[in-house]
């Protein structure tokens, strides 16, 4: 497994329990990338489009963004839309990680250019498995686009 410490994972999640469980799942699956948390859509956008993020010595753009849909202030689909509209973040891998299994969310999410759509299972064992596969695919197998697209 290639070390991937240099780039962070952006977790957009308003629920602290989910945040903790996700972190636990990362840990259990040996995913060591730094995790940046945004508690709502506005924070996520602020982080992504902040000068410091992209500046020398900053965190840089995340290697993967895990995006919840139901978020305070700015919802997940709006965040995705803005990411895809901006040339800097246009190719950023974004996985929708949400409770919703609504058809319309799926369709809209993919329509806006989500790379993946994963429904959070209630069963933590299954959740762990999902996170494991996620990490394996996006952090290990997938060749990410250049950090400065």
């Amino acid at each position, binding site marked *: 497994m290639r070390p991937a410490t240099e780039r962070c994972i952006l977790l957009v999640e308003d*629920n602290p*329990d*989910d945040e903790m*469980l996700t972190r*636990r799942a990362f840990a259990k699956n040996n995913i060591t990338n730094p995790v940046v948390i945004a508690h709502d859509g506005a924070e996520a956008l602020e982080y992504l489009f902040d000068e410091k993020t992209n500046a020398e010595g900053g965190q840089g753009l995340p290697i993967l963004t895990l995006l919840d*849909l*139901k978020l305070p202030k700015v919802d997940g689909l709006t965040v995705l839309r803005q990411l895809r509209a901006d040339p800097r973040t246009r190719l950023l891998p974004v996985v929708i990680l*949400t*409770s*919703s*299994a*609504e*058809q319309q969310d799926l369709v809209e999410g993919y329509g806006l250019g989500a790379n993946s759509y994963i429904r*959070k*299972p*209630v*069963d*933590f*064992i299954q*959740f762990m498995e999902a996170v494991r596969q996620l990490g394996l695919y996006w952090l290990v197998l997938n060749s990410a686009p250049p950090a400065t697209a």
Partner: protein
Amino acid sequence: MESTEVSSERTLRHMTRAHGGAIVILGVLALAIHVTLAHRIGAIRADARFINRAGLERMQLQRSALLAARLAHAAPAERSALRALLRRQAHIMWHLWRSLPAVREARTHAREHLTSRVRAFVTALRAAAQDTGRTAAPRLKGVVDAAHGSLAIALNRRVLAYQREADRDNTDLALFSRDQFFLMLSALTALTLFIFMPLSRLTRTEIRKMNDLVAYTRTLFEAAPDGIVVIDERGIIEAFNPAAEVLFGRAAEDMRGQSVAVLMPEPDRSRHADHLRRHLETGERRIIGQLREVMAARSDGTSFPVELSVGVIDGRRRRFVGLLRDLTARKAAERALELVRQRYQDLVTNINAGIFRAEAANPPRFAEVNPAMLALFEAPTREALLAQPLDALFVRDEDRAIFSEQWDPTSLGPGREILLRTLRGREFWAVISAVRQGEAGRIYFDGFMEDATERREAAEALAALNRDLRQRVIDLDVANKELEAFSYSVSHDLRAPLRSIDGFSQALLEDYADRVDAAGRDYLARVRAASQKMAHLIDDILQLSRVSRARLVRTPVDLSAIARDTAESLKADDPDRQVEWRIEEGLGVMADAVLMRQVMSNLLANAWKFTSKRPGALIEVGQRLTGGAREIFVRDNGAGFDMAYADRLFGVFQRLHASHDFDGTGIGLAIVQRIVRRHGGDVHADGAVGEGARFSFTIPDEEDSDASRH
């Protein structure tokens, strides 16, 4: 024809006058000639008489001389007889002379001279006859001498004079006769030239005219499209034209001489003789010169209506001309027309809509109305409605122009309602439809009107209902949106705590395994199971609500293929189970593919589940026809169910089996039923405990029921 007659009359009068004139002229001429001739002939006759008398006088003179001579020598016994003779001789001579006229050429004194000589002789004669004495002899001698002397010569001359006069008169007569001849000749010539020739010319013209008239009349008679029958005063047919032959089906030659009564049906036939007699006796002109409709009889005995007009020819003998026109066709047409008219009249009378004719006078009034109009305007009588000025009936000012002269009926849009007032003052809405008609310089509007009050109220009620409905739709949309938001938040927010419960329970188990004993681990496992169960329930409820909300898109769906896929995935989940699958090929329906997949997967999962405890499990998918409808069924030989609870199978969260026997949320069949019903079909369950179950459903091809969409 008339002018011909008039000119003919004039000609006749002219001819009569001319003839009269000619006769008078000729008469006068003849009378004059007669009188003149009679006079001339009288004169000639007189001349002859005078010649005779004058000759007789001369002869008497000689006889007197003879008698005188005999007396002179007679014996005495004879003398008295001779003397008497002599006296008579004297009387005759004087009497003769006196009857002689004077000679026209002689002078008066000459005649008197001769008269005196005759008188002297006569006197001498008488004297000689009287004298019986001695002077008798000389006297007698004197008489004889006188008689032989100049008197005789004078009397001879006198005879000759009369002869000359007679010759003159004869000559005059001959001249007169010649004049007469020429006079008559010229009179005749004049008459011929100035009267007879023009008259004959006129007569020829008249005759030609009469011939023309006769030909004209005959042509009319023969070519007339109407039957013409001429009868005499006794009712005997004299003429029968070809049209009459056709009309009556009889030949003219057979009809001439017959009574006209044969052309009439009873009872006219019997009465006709009386009618004719009365007409002749009283001169009553009941039928002359009038058009009448009577019945006529054909030769075959059928009768038919004719129009009859009778004319009278007042010639030498009176005759009647009957003109007959067959009314059969006209009667039939009239009847047909009357029938149509009656039908329209009935329609107008009985139709439950006001039909009217309004006249655009000032103010406008109705000219005609049907009974429905009276009801519409609550009019007590037709007259009351016809007398009502119409402008007062319009409630709104802008409608007052209706039925005025300038009004254009097309300006009323279709269905435009007018507020009117009845004669009792009640207001009502009406729809008016009219057309403008100009007749004899007047303007009319023909049309109909209908009470629109009810319709208007109904329309208003409908509009209110529509508004209400729209509001409800809006409300429903809002409710739907709320439901969606609710579902969304259920899906999101209800699951999140479950995840926490499950996740941290697991974390507890993992991280604090050494401090939790077996009972604690069991509790934590139950917490996790319960939270996962609840997550399933939430998912199923969401699915059920999605079935109701999802749009139905019908496409051809192959249920056989879906069944095979589902069977494969079930086998893959539990490869150890031995289940026999019998899936019929070609189970196609027109339905929503996504929803049908849910139906099949629910039914097959059930069958799979309830056969799990049975060896030799069999799951069958097929179709059959029941009562014309095609039924798809899924049958298994599993645990089955009690038919007493069959209706509870499709209820939400209804379970007939304990969870520990067969797990499940109890929502699958509710979803199946909802999907089938949304397709307009129905689902049905059969089974018996321990003998398996059979679920069948129908999917009608037509999208005739989508009632449970919302």
